């Protein structure tokens, strides 16, 4: 099976994020980029399917050096080759543009049997890109997958989806298909030293987004402002040493909230 695994580079969520000067996105300069967490589960799932059914796993990402970095990490984890779509534009909120670019690159590479992506990204976190990608490819899709069983002989894939309230839905899709993979669907492997060395010799293509026939969608939505929300909340912060704050807390819970 030929499987694409899409990876979004995001500013490391473990670092302290701040708003940029034009208040349109976070500061990205000098920040460390990593693969968006859910995309690691997608890549792990792709590698497991390949190990079971043979074939190849192609990692795909859009962006500049940050995209090259997450692709190299994907190759080190075990993907066979990488395609970077270079794009000089800032990408912040443009899921639309990302989805179309990924779809066109997949088509240019001759299509695939499966395309996997993380259920949502660590930055925008809306889970839209994978689903849009399916529409641009004209393929069937399933979101929030926690288990994937490919059956290439029958031309199908069986997927368990995690819905609200702990409901698990089982669906069978005809291939080719796009799946978005839920957090915790598997345990992503770490890259071994051998994997990191081998990654350096693997094919790595760089295509320009301008050559892929992606329409300019900048006119669709303006970003007005990115802001840390006002804490108009009701919270009462109890300060002091740990002993002082917990004493105050217990007193409040007993006398004010009356829950102890």
């Amino acid at each position, binding site marked *: 099976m030929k499987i694409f695994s899409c990876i979004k580079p995001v500013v490391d969520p473990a670092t302290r*994020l701040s708003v940029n000067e034009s208040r349109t996105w976070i500061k990205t300069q000098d920040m460390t980029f990593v693969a968006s967490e859910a995309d690691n589960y997608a890549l792990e799932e792709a590698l497991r399917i390949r190990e079971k059914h043979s074939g190849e796993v192609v990692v795909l990402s859009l962006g500049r050096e940050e995209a090259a970095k997450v692709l190299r990490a994907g190759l080190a984890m075990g993907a066979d080759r990488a395609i970077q779509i270079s794009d000089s534009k800032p990408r912040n*909120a443009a*899921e*639309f543009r990302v*989805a179309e670019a990924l779809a066109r690159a997949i088509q240019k590479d001759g299509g695939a049997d499966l395309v996997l992506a993380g259920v949502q990204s*660590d930055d*925008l*976190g*809306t889970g*839209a*890109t994978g*689903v*849009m990608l399916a*529409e641009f490819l004209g393929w069937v*899709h*399933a979101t*929030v997958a926690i288990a994937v069983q490919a059956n290439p002989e029958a031309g199908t894939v069986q997927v368990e*989806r*995690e*819905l*609200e*309230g*702990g*409901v*698990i*839905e*089982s*669906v*069978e899709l*005809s291939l080719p298909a796009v799946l978005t993979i839920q*957090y*915790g669907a598997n345990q992503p492997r770490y890259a071994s030293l051998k994997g990191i060395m081998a990654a350096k010799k693997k094919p790595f293509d760089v295509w320009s987004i301008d050559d892929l026939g992606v329409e300019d*969608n900048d*006119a*669709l*939505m*303006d970003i*007005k*402002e*990115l*802001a*840390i929300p006002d*804490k108009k*909340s*009701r*919270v009462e*912060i*109890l*300060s002091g040493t*740990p*002993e002082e704050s*917990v*004493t105050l*807390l*217990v007193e*409040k*819970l007993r006398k004010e*909230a009356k*829950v*102890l």
Partner: protein
Amino acid sequence: MILVITEHREGKFTAHSTELIVFAQRAGRDLGMPVHALVLGSAGLDLDGLKTAKIDRILTVDEPQLTSYDPDFYLPAIKAILDRQSSSLIVGGHTTQGMDFMPRLAALLRRPLAAGCVNYEKVGDRLVLTRQVFNAKMNLKVVPKGQGPALVTIVPGSFPGDEMETGGTPEVEAISVDLTQVKPRRRLLGQSKAPRGNVDLSSASIIVAGGRGLKQKENFSLISELAEALGGAVGASRPVVDAEWLPREYQIGSSGQTVAPKLYVAVGISGAIQHLVGMQNARCIVAINKDPEAPIFKVAHYGIVDDLFKVVPSLIKLVRDLKG
């Protein structure tokens, strides 16, 4: 016209559908636009509640292909509705179902999707939509542009369903859509509830829940000890369960259990929206976290911004002393 795509499950409208109506009623008033509610797969569905809503029209499509949700049939059905009457704003849920077809619809129409909205304001004649981004730590305000509909998905809990305006007499219009040409590519094999085990947190009156801030599995004993001292139950956020520190049945949040105890103590939980929706109705919420910007403080009543490894042992000792 504002088109609300309602959601239903097991023959009933979801509570979130009412919240979508509330958003549409307010946006409709601000923009001077009528509100139409679309019900796909309406056969056998009780429309009485929806009929009392102060909206202009209820559109029903009850083709057999729409009885169970399938995006491949939803999309052409919605497209057919839009071809009959154009819409300025298409509203869907920011749910596993809404986010399963709204992005596809946006790509199909080549129109913008503002996914994950929690609020809006009207500036001039435009809607400025507030989206929750970066794990609910930041808000992104966006303005859809251009000719044609804008698509939005609304985060559950953003617009209280009990604030729906009633007293309307919407006309119900049944519309037939030809879906016979659509080839099925997806087969529903079944649905099941994940096993809950013996852990039913929904009836616990005190819950102590731990998150990623505990750093490793061994440290989770702090949570159990505090829960025991308080006479409460143990819960966890998703990362804890994903890391297999605790089985899935302890998970609180949108893909786990929804709880509303008397007292909820969140320890080392940053408060992703998926977690908040599962516990924000607790009567009293205490958050212990060293990050003062963690979203959990937005829903908490009392907060301690400090190292949990110092605070929790003190708290355990104090509670034990008081009880002992």
